[in-house]
């Protein structure tokens, strides 16, 4: 298990290298010279050249890439082109906001999504099932930024219950979290339903019933436990995408999170920030994926024993 974990951690290194390379290459194609953008319309050619040299932007691609990589593995990203602030401290400052939103909404999603999915599955084709799943479909089909705007219209503008911007108070988190949770809840509910349907047809569920077990225990104890794998996958991938999962909502609500930071950086061509942000997001993604695999192993003895035998090759 430990060996497997270490192997996976080591594997993250080339992935991160690749991610940085990819993103840097794409940014290379973005129109606009960061130095010119920073200096504004009045800048002279010399000023621009000077600044480019100062930022090291006149070095060849490979040199810049190498420098970025070396620094990144020390978790050092330099300063933002546009504001001059340390990117690391900015990222560390922003992550908690984003994570709060993502995690709160994930918790909401799990608490609502799973029971809905289970009820749907256990009452397949009933009115309740159809309604729940239709509602879930509506939720995944809605653009969440639009939903957020509509929530603002109703709850902030018309009713005046909730703030429309900012997150100084707990209330401020309500609309953003709901907007982010919307799609996730629906996906979890749908996934729960389909994997529950698969599981409750299995013989061991009938076996549990034949033992005289209560229906509740059969469903929540035996069936749900077994149906959890694909649900964990959905939750895990949302968790892994947490840092970028609320981008649009952050920008709507002016939340100083990672998403907002990145959108601004992309718009102002702050390559340093974009690269660092993507790097951190990919790092988080990798760690979460590893965490998810470990949770699989914890939840499923079959997978656990494979890890022990070292037989696992990634799908």
């Amino acid at each position, binding site marked *: 298990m430990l060996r497997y974990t270490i192997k996976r951690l080591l594997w993250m290194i080339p992935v991160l290298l690749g991610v940085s390379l990819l993103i840097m290459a794409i940014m290379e194609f973005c129109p606009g010279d960061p130095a010119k953008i920073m200096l504004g319309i009045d800048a002279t050619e010399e000023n621009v050249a000077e600044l480019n040299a100062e930022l090291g932007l006149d070095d060849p691609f490979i040199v810049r890439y190498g420098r970025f990589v070396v620094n990144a593995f020390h978790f050092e990203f330099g300063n933002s082109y546009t504001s001059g602030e340390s990117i690391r401290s900015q990222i560390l400052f922003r992550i908690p906001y984003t994570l709060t939103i993502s995690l709160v909404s994930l918790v909401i999603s799990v608490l609502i999504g799973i029971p809905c999915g289970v009820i749907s599955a256990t009452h397949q084709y009933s009115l309740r099932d159809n309604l729940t799943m239709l509602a879930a479909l509506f939720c995944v089909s809605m653009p969440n930024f639009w939903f957020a705007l509509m929530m603002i219209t109703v709850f902030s503008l018309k009713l005046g219950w909730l703030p429309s911007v900012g997150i100084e108070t707990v209330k401020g988190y309500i609309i953003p979290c709901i907007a982010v949770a919307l799609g996730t809840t629906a996906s979890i509910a749908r996934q729960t339903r389909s994997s529950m349907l698969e599981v409750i047809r299995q013989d061991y569920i009938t076996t549990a019933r034949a033992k005289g077990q209560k229906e509740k225990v059969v469903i929540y104890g035996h069936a749900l436990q077994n149906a959890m794998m694909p649900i964990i996958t959905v939750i895990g991938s949302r968790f892994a995408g947490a840092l970028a999962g609320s981008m649009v909502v952050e920008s709507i609500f002016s939340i100083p999170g990672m998403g907002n930071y990145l959108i601004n950086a992309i718009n102002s061509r702050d390559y340093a920030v974009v690269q660092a942000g993507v790097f951190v997001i990919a790092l988080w993604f990798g760690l979460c994926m590893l965490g998810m695999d470990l949770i699989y192993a914890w939840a499923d003895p079959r997978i656990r024993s494979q890890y022990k*035998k*070292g*037989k696992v*090759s990634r799908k």
Partner: protein
Amino acid sequence: MMAQILEVKNLKKYFQTPGGELHAVDNVSFRMEAGTTLGVVGESGCGKSTLGRTVLHLHESTDGKIFFQGEDITRVDKKKLKALREDMQIIFQDPYSSLNPRMSVSEIIREPLKRKGGRTKAELDTDVERLMDLVGLAQRFANSYPHELDGGRRQRIGIARALSLNPKFIVCDEPVSALDVSIQAQILNLMKDLQDQMGLSYIFITHDLSVVKHMSDEISVMYLGQMVEKASAAELFYHPIHPYTKALLSAIPIPKVNIERKRILLKGEITSPVNPKPGCRFAARCAYASEECKAPQTLEEVEPGHFVSCCCSKKFI
């Protein structure tokens, strides 16, 4: 004396698995005559299917030699393989997964013929019709899809497909295991009829001992990748020598009342074929195991036509 159709010498097929080398078929030798049936029995996972597939070059053999009609076909090039496959065919166990669900019955049967070439469309049609008649499939099913048919009919499609290229030799990998007894009997009859009509040679793989007895001229018993006993069907049933064969035969539930049943109950189950130790692989479950059994065993002819791979075989004769 009949012509020899297949000979296998020290055939080995090892799979590389994460846990180590898996000896699916280990040092198997046999020969069979044209127009006869060689039955292969053994427990699940003992390497029966792998043996059949390796002979057909669906798996590349790890070691050993395969002769078909006296010719060494262990390593063949593409062109030769193509010709070879027209002579050697396979029928699968699972009539569900062995038929492409997206092709209609006639398409499935027509495909190999079309590939072989040299036939006009009309000729193809008559050939398909002929094959369907041959295996007892009514023409009205020509445009049906496999999922619309029952297991028995599906298995007939599989047989028709195997026959389409006019092979001399067919590996039947548990062709009736998935079927109910009455359907099973229909298919077994069909296969026997076909053999008589066309002079086919079968390797008949099964774990159902009564079926293998009904079908085969000779039977070989496999255990963990190795052949432990081989004899003519009658000989094997009335005079089994290897302790495993004896246990196997005694375990068959006989559908008769008031008969005396003498069970030889084996301990435990077949073990893993990954990196097996040398020596008799059955020793762990054998009531007669002794020190001698730790040495490698060889298949020896203890009686004319009766081969046994057991160092203690003399004792049991």
